[in-house]
């Protein structure tokens, strides 16, 4: 299968890529890892006349720690995050990076590309929404920083301007006594999740929940922050009652559609179950326990 013929532009810097996008207009798309874009082009669901390739821009691939934050370049591949000792300090980042699709896709797919594509089933969005994350961007008007909570506007639609690109993703390192978990439930490795849940908890003495962030993936047009579910935990002890209340609120917050991955009702049920499981793992991790989880295959 072949995409429509396109003109190829190899950018040497993000600024140059941005000028090319401004000049070429709507016919141009950005090529990062290409693991979504190339299949879409081969199926002719996307048929750009121009591709601006970022893969030869130097210095866009890194994971660094500085002043309580982790900064990753837009072109950092999922596999680089998976093997980065910096990212491994935050187990939820490792859960996500090590489970996206399969090895081959993780070797190519990028963090910046995943966020900029804004696929409703993308893995990074729910995970990073449970942490304090900002997206740094470069465009014709220069640089700006967008909080991730304001980045996704709709399915496949972000706050990025037409000639604007993600340059870096900045994640605040969560406080001590906190822990998170990401669970994505899927049919097999290379496919998107049927539903996914990210939970990050900050725990006070005697197992009282100081703060909770819960986000749902693949069950709405964008990743969904389940704020009622968070409220059900905040200030409470982690008991069966509070965890059940959080799961019920998350079940209600999901906005799934029936499709080949499952019926809407099935996905809602899945969300409730995954939230309970993720809370338990996040809680154990907040106590310093090592728990290995990642994407779950049916």
């Amino acid at each position, binding site marked *: *299968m*072949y*995409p*429509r*013929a*396109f*003109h*190829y532009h*190899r950018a040497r810097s993000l600024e140059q890529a941005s000028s090319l996008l401004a000049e070429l207009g709507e016919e141009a798309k950005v*090529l990062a890892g*290409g*693991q979504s874009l*190339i*299949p879409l082009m*081969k*199926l002719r669901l996307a048929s750009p006349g121009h*591709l601006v*390739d970022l*893969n*030869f821009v130097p210095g866009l691939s890194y994971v660094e720690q500085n002043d309580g934050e982790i900064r990753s370049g837009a072109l950092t*591949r999922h*596999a680089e995050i998976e093997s980065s000792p910096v990212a491994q300090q935050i187990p939820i980042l490792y859960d996500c990076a090590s489970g996206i*699709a*399969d*090895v*081959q*896709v993780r*070797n*190519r797919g990028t963090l910046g590309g995943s966020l900029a594509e804004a696929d409703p089933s993308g893995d990074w969005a729910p995970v990073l929404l449970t942490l304090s994350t900002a997206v740094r961007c470069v465009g014709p008007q220069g640089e700006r920083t967008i909080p991730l909570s304001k980045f996704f506007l709709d399915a496949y639609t972000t706050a990025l301007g037409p000639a604007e690109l993600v340059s870096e993703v900045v994640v605040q390192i969560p406080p001590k006594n906190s822990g998170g978990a990401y669970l994505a439930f899927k049919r*097999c*490795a*290379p*496919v998107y999740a049927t539903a996914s849940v990210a939970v990050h908890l900050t725990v006070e003495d005697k197992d009282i929940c100081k703060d909770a962030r819960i986000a749902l993936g693949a069950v709405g047009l964008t990743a969904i922050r389940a704020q009622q579910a968070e409220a059900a935990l905040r200030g409470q002890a982690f008991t069966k009652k509070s965890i059940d209340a959080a799961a019920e609120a998350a079940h209600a917050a999901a906005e799934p559609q029936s499709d080949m991955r499952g019926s809407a009702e099935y996905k809602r049920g899945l969300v409730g179950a995954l939230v309970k499981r993720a809370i338990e793992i996040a809680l154990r991790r907040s106590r310093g326990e090592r728990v290995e989880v990642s994407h779950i*295959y049916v």
Partner: protein
Amino acid sequence: MSETIERVPIRVTVNGKGYQREVEPRLLLVDFLREELDLTGTHIGCDTSYCGACTVLLNEASVKSCTVFAVQADQGEVLTVEGLEQDGHLHPLQQAFADHYGLQCGYCTPGLLLSACHLLVKNPHPTEQQIRKAIAGNTCRCTGYQNILKAIQAAAQSMGK
């Protein structure tokens, strides 16, 4: 009406040998290997980035060559199944796949060999779980995977000696 698309000069090292070509931007890496270089060991399976039959190593990382444009491999190094054998000797993974019946029809084998090769370079002594995860992007419809697991375990052992 067709407009002229500029071809792009690329330089790629494949299995240790340098090649220079001018390619159309939409040429996929798998077709570059198969059609331009006549290296037909790399197979096209699903053509939608699912099955992993087209897996090759690009700059030491396994990739699905049906989901990479040849222009993206410019200045890069590619390893295909043809490059595994050295001086007439099968690579230990190839030998182990033969010894342990790790294939039946053989269609998925080139991709599985490269995925396994990528794994053993990064992790010479993988657990069974790690092997399973490493080949999760390679579909085999004949073997049921058991003999593939055995083959990779045996290759890891023989390479570790």
